[in-house]
């Protein structure tokens, strides 16, 4: 009997020690990062979901260029590049000795394949428009690629740093959705669907190796569960915490650090410029004057968010502060509405997609507009319905959406876009921008573009979505802001 007892005790002790040992070891060089939305698959070249890029971009996959934490363009798989005099030919010198995770070597042909695939006829790339200016992609030798453009494109190098422009290997490209093979500092290890994606350090990485040995992205869709997971120590951090209302709880807990940063998400009251009263500039101006941005940020986002007066990220050097062009002024709003021919206001519809900024923000916007007589019917919709009704069929008056793509003011030049804003003047500005390469001149044009859409009140410009980072105070190297949709883990490490 006593032998069995000793044996059992030994086993239990070993188990306990093994469990403790693994958890102590794990704290040093592995990271459990929480995420709200599970990526639908892991191939950024075949889907728009930000969650895909937030897992794989810069960690597993790399492009010719990369966007760093400040939004600047840095060399990646392209070691350096030269641009021709007419700004139409880019010659990329590629990194040598780079291996894909399956051992295949990275060469010029992979770049040719990736870019041609993205712009090809059967391309399912969600940002195909980024590759539109490309006329041809040719390999000059095994590590030199020449990209010829139809017209000078100022943002080309930035665009090549998007997750949608990553370089893949033809042999493994078809499998990237479930088993991504890239060149990045982390290798895909496994994906327990619905629960986590695990990456391990790529020891054959060509550049500075990652400091973490393992990174796990845990999927926790429910905000309350996210709080418990953080409190219980199951999760080391959230790059962007889903529930701003819980942030004060973390702020008062010495184990955590709360880092409020900025995203590329311009949160706007999108307006159908071709429908009903909203066709009239004066009505849109009245709406702009009736929006109390501070009340919206306080009420819907618990105070986190930066007011904007146009469709541009406030942290970008080309940003122009236009908030004061349409200050909160109910008397003026009412007067504009009367001048537009609606002294008693009118009825309209606001369709709200699921994110809390939209649902909570929508209620506040509706109550604010009611003060000047615009009576909005609130219709909550799912994303799929939103895409179908609002985005595709333009069956809406107003909606609230955060446009999270970086540098996306160009959407105002698309007259088939759901704002239904058709302005030859703005389109001309964007053409001029595309043909301009000098930074100062580009900022000048971007400033004009911001002023134009602000003056025309194309949409109600509300606020820049904040990034609510919460993580263990001993973690270093997580991004404070998100200039691209990514959780770049290459420089993350733990301190004692």
């Amino acid at each position, binding site marked *: 009997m006593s032998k069995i007892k000793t044996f059992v005790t030994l086993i239990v002790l070993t*188990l306990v020690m093994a469990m403790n040992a693994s958890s102590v070891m794990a704290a040093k060089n592995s990271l459990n990062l929480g995420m709200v939305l*599970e990526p*639908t*698959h892991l*191939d950024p070249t*075949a*889907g*728009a*979901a930000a969650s895909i890029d937030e897992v794989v971009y810069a960690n597993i996959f790399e492009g010719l260029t990369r966007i760093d934490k400040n939004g600047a363009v840095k060399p990646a798989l392209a070691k350096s590049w030269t641009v021709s005099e007419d700004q139409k030919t880019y010659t990329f010198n590629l990194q040598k000795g780079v291996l894909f995770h399956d051992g295949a070597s990275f060469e010029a042909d992979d770049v040719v394949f990736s870019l041609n695939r993205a712009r090809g*006829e*059967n*391309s*399912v*790339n*969600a*940002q*195909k*428009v980024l590759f539109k200016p490309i006329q041809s992609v040719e390999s000059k030798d095994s590590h030199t690629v020449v990209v010829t453009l139809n017209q000078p494109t100022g943002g080309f190098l930035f665009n090549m740093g998007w997750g949608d422009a990553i370089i893949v290997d033809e042999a493994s490209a078809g499998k990237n*959705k*479930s088993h991504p093979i890239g060149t990045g500092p982390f290798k895909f290890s496994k994906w*327990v*669907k*619905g*629960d*986590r994606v695990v990456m391990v350090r790529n020891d054959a990485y060509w550049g500075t190796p990652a400091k973490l040995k393992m990174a796990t992205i*845990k*999927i*926790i*869709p*429910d905000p*309350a*569960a996210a709080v*418990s*997971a953080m*409190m*219980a*120590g*199951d999760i080391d951090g959230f790059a962007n915490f889903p529930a701003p209302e819980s942030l004060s709880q973390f702020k008062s807990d010495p184990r955590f650090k709360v880092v409020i940063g900025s995203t590329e998400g311009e949160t706007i009251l999108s307006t159908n410029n071709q429908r009903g009263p909203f066709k009239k500039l004066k009505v849109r101006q009245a709406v702009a004057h009736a929006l109390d941005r501070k009340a919206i940020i306080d009420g819907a986002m618990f105070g986190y968010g930066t007011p904007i007066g146009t469709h541009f990220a406030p942290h970008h050097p080309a940003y122009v502060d236009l908030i004061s062009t349409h200050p909160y002024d109910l008397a003026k709003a009412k007067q504009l509405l009367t001048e537009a021919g609606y002294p008693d206001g009118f009825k309209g519809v606001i369709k709200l997609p699921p994110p809390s900024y939209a649902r909570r923000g929508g209620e506040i916007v509706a109550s604010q507009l009611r003060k000047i007589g615009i009576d909005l019917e609130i219709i909550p919709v*799912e*994303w*799929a*319905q939103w*895409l*179908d*009704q609002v*985005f*595709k069929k333009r069956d809406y008056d107003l909606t609230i*959406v955060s*446009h999270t*793509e970086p540098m*996306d003011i160009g*959407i105002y030049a698309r007259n088939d876009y*759901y704002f239904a804003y058709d302005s030859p003047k703005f389109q001309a500005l964007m053409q001029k921008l595309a043909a301009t390469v000098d930074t100062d001149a580009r900022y000048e044009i971007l400033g004009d573009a911001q002023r134009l859409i602000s003056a025309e009140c194309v949409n109600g410009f509300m606020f820049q979505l904040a990034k609510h980072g919460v993580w263990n105070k001993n973690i270093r190297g997580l991004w404070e802001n998100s200039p691209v949709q990514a959780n770049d883990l290459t420089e993350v490490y733990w301190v004692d």
Partner: protein
Amino acid sequence: MRIFLVKRVFTLILTLLVATLVVFVVLEILPGDPAAVMLGVNAEAETLNALREEMGLNRPVWVRYTHWVASLLTGNLGISYTYDVPVSELILSRITVSFPLAILAMTLSTLIAIPLGIIAASNHNKPMDFLVMSFSQIGIAIPNFWFAMLLTIVFSVTFRLLPAGGFAGWDAGIIPVLKSFLLPTIALALPQAAILSRVTRSALLEVLKEDFIRTARAKGVTNQGTLWKHALRNALIPVVTIMGLQFSFLLAGTIIIENVFYLPGIGRLIFQAISQRDLIVVKNLVILLAGAVIMINFVVDLLYAVIDPRLRGGSDA
């Protein structure tokens, strides 16, 4: 019995066929284009069309329907739009979470409920009965998600004994798996046990009023003897019925608990698939669940016959 079985199987197939039709039609009516959901707001029309072509969405409705029913027969269910893995593989990986969890919760619930029900019934109108019924009343009144959060706060956040959620994965070994299942099992089982104990009690009390019980007592069988030998078996029919319903619920209806404990189960998969318009996953899952419920009912019917020989009937029983 054989004719009964053949009839049942025939009804089962017919029900499933009708179910496929209903599911297919409903999903056709559902607004939203899966391709648009996947590619988001910056996609262009030609890109969308390329993806729709790739996903086979451009084929006529009846071709897609027959193709689907055929695929159900072969078991080759197709590829998930969003995850890009075979649907069967996806569903299987979720069932390995939901099914053991449902079994564990059902077992725990039964182990608690039946004894409590018996105790309450045999102590009818005594303090013990009152105590058990108070527990049951509280159990019914407490929403399981709230109870689940309470469990997390106590055992994960305060005492740090168990993970707050997540699924360790079967390859991590049995102990981590049981650790991830423990709190969800309790959260699911207690409210079910509360209902089941009440059903057991009232079914027993009902039977205890019957004439044959009085006869048994008159013949000198003890109180306990009548309860265990005569009453319990007769009271089992409503209990088994409720257990069948509860098991169906536990298989499919645990989405809230799955969210609180962020478990990758069937409930969350179906919710996620609907919101992402992964229709191929939705329709196969719904059929699977419909099939499961029909099968559980079938098993419950068979159990009736086991419990009550009078229900067996037929010449070759």
